């Protein structure tokens, strides 16, 4: 213990390290990207290899409207965080709620599509390779949307109770980073499932 003070050097060290929340979120996003990559590879590998119908081109319709909803939620969450950074506490819950609503709309769109596929087209995860890969990949994404929506709802509740203030902007921004990732993955999933896979 007596040796400790000498470890303080007289050189004036300027020291600035990145925020840990942001670094951790980038790591999590890398791990998630690796998981999605494997599912995307499996999807692409099995395109056209189903032995029985229904085939993608017969039953899939590109969900343009819901895609627009999800992608624009990236914009609203960005606006929410930047209004929080500028201490406009009234703007934050509004944009934040809009993000939640857009995300929920997207999830409802997925639910409706699945309902149609299961009950009208008779496609389940057991039907053929297309069903297995489709429900797994889209379901994995929908699961991430759900997790994001739960987190967003939690923050919204805190915001409505008045606990979210300007100093929390950095943390909220880390959550926004995750949400941007979920949106970006949808661009890949959409391309793979509704463009290449069809």
């Amino acid at each position, binding site marked *: *213990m007596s040796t400790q003070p000498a470890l303080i050097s007289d050189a004036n060290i300027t020291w600035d390290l990145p925020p840990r929340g942001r670094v951790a979120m980038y790591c999590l996003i890398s*791990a998630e990207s690796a998981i999605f990559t494997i599912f995307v590879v499996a999807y692409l590998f099995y395109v056209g290899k189903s032995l029985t119908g229904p085939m993608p081109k017969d039953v899939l319709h590109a969900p343009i409207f819901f895609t627009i909803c999800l992608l624009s939620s990236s914009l609203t969450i960005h606006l929410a965080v930047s209004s929080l950074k500028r201490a406009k506490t009234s703007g934050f819950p509004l944009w934040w709620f809009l993000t939640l609503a857009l995300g929920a709309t997207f999830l409802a769109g997925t639910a409706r599509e699945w309902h149609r596929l299961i009950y009208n087209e008779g496609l389940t995860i057991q039907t053929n390779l297309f069903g297995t890969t489709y429900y*797994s990949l889209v379901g994995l994404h929908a699961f991430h949307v759900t997790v994001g929506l739960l987190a967003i709802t939690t923050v919204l509740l805190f915001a409505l109770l008045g606990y979210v203030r300007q100093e929390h902007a950095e943390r909220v921004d880390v959550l926004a980073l995750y949400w941007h990732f979920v949106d970006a993955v949808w661009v890949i999933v959409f391309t793979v499932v509704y463009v290449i896979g069809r």
Partner: protein
Amino acid sequence: MATDAITTLRADTASLPFVVKLHEWVTTVDHKRLGILYIVYALVFLMIGGVEAAVMRIQLIRPHNNFVSPEVFNQMFTMHGTTMIFFVVMPMLFGFANYLVPLMIGARDMAFPRLNAFSFWLTAFGGILLYFSFLGANGLYGDGTAPDVGWFAYAPLTSKTFSLGHSTDFWTLSLLVSGFGSIGTAVNIIATIFCMRCPGMTLAKMPLLAWLNLVMAVLVILAVSPLSAAQIMLAVDRYLGGHFFDTQAGGSAVIWMHFFWIFGHPEVYVLVIPAFAFASEIIPVFSRKAIFGYPVMVAATVCIAFISMSVWAHHMFTVGMNANANTFFVLSTMAIAVPTGIKIFNWLATMWGGKIHFKTPMLFCIGFLFQFLIAGLTGIMLSAAPFTWHLGNSYFVVAHFHYVIVGAILFATFGAFYYWFPKMAGKMYNETLGKLHFWLFLIGFHLTFDFMHIPGLLGMPRRIYTYEPGRGWDTLNLIVTIGAFFQAAGILVFVANLLWSYFHGETVGSDPWDAWTLEWSTSSPPPVYNFAITPEVRSRRPLWDLKHPEDPDWKYEYMERS
């Protein structure tokens, strides 16, 4: 003063009843306690995995032996492999990373202490789940209990048709759960290293152990995630009736191999890079020289990690890939030998001209160095596709990767145990018992794994339950099994040494090795807060600077910019 308050607290802890102490350990978020929990947990599973190996070796000691049934033998090699990789070596290395990285970079704790505890308990329950299969996996009367599909669980052996009951489900779920734990720890290690370094410790001044664990954590993120994805797919197949690996419905068994080995090969480097890290800390201290070629060591490690992501299909040469794929994976695999060779030469150059102290940690590191070299050489042999066509799935392969995992990783880890035991326990280990452990284990290791190459060359396939007499395998298998008992004896000496020294060892000060990194500047064992005052560093060897103010490192270090 803060120190007095802490001292009182420690005095209180010593007299607390057992239940309270247990509660403290179970609910702890302290990186040092979690590190020790990881290590103790790994040691327990090392015993279990070792017993499984011993069962296999006794079964193979002579031809037509009937020590265990074929079914039990299949369970033994599956559980041995899964246990040793996922529940021994990984937790052991995570334990050391947890304990050492914050201390070496002058931090108070990991970046996310609660995530750290969460990750540990995920790993712990993953292991318990795997072993619960012995009790709970009976789906139908007469089914196997523990998983018996091999540690890489090739399709279609894992499908419902061929693997009845729940044994494969236990395997999948336990690896999924512990995999999430590993990813959590990796995220934590990266965030800790990037965000928690003490003032002055730029990346270029970090101890090599921190650097190598950073690379290891990046590899965990890139490698364990694909395994988790593949396990989810297998669970979809088994629980929901999916067809990912179902060849009857157009699925592919080969794609499982690809997914598994995209994890499986980088995993080897996840395990061996921390072993490199131990050697890179221990060899300089016991050679009384700074590490040779620090920047090159870092670059070589990053290079190994990078190449290791593109070599996975060398595990699949016998599957029948096309010539282009074979050529690519042969060349990329051989390329790994270059940065690895650089590292070996750097360690040798560190020892060259040094004043070498042959203490137990150094003995283990020297063993590591030579055995890793041989493991690398058989690795280059196996990287040639035609060679693997001949010897794939033979005991030659088993001998090769045990040379890596036991000869290199386990030896370096034993070195790390002896080197940091005084820091963790505050007591010195028994040097005589340590040397006995080294020699017993060295003899056992070479009896087992040197001689295991030969039956492989003579055509003995791995995973066979018994064999015909008169093929020239009999004596060799006997020698291999005898070696296993030497290793077991070595391990018993090791555990006895740890326990005896913990209770009766000689108390040591903060720096018994006259070492140079920050963990030796705080007391042994370190207080909960690690450092009373946040240290500031100017070179890679802050304690050298402290002990030699007339000739500090920072005057000479290449990257100094102050």
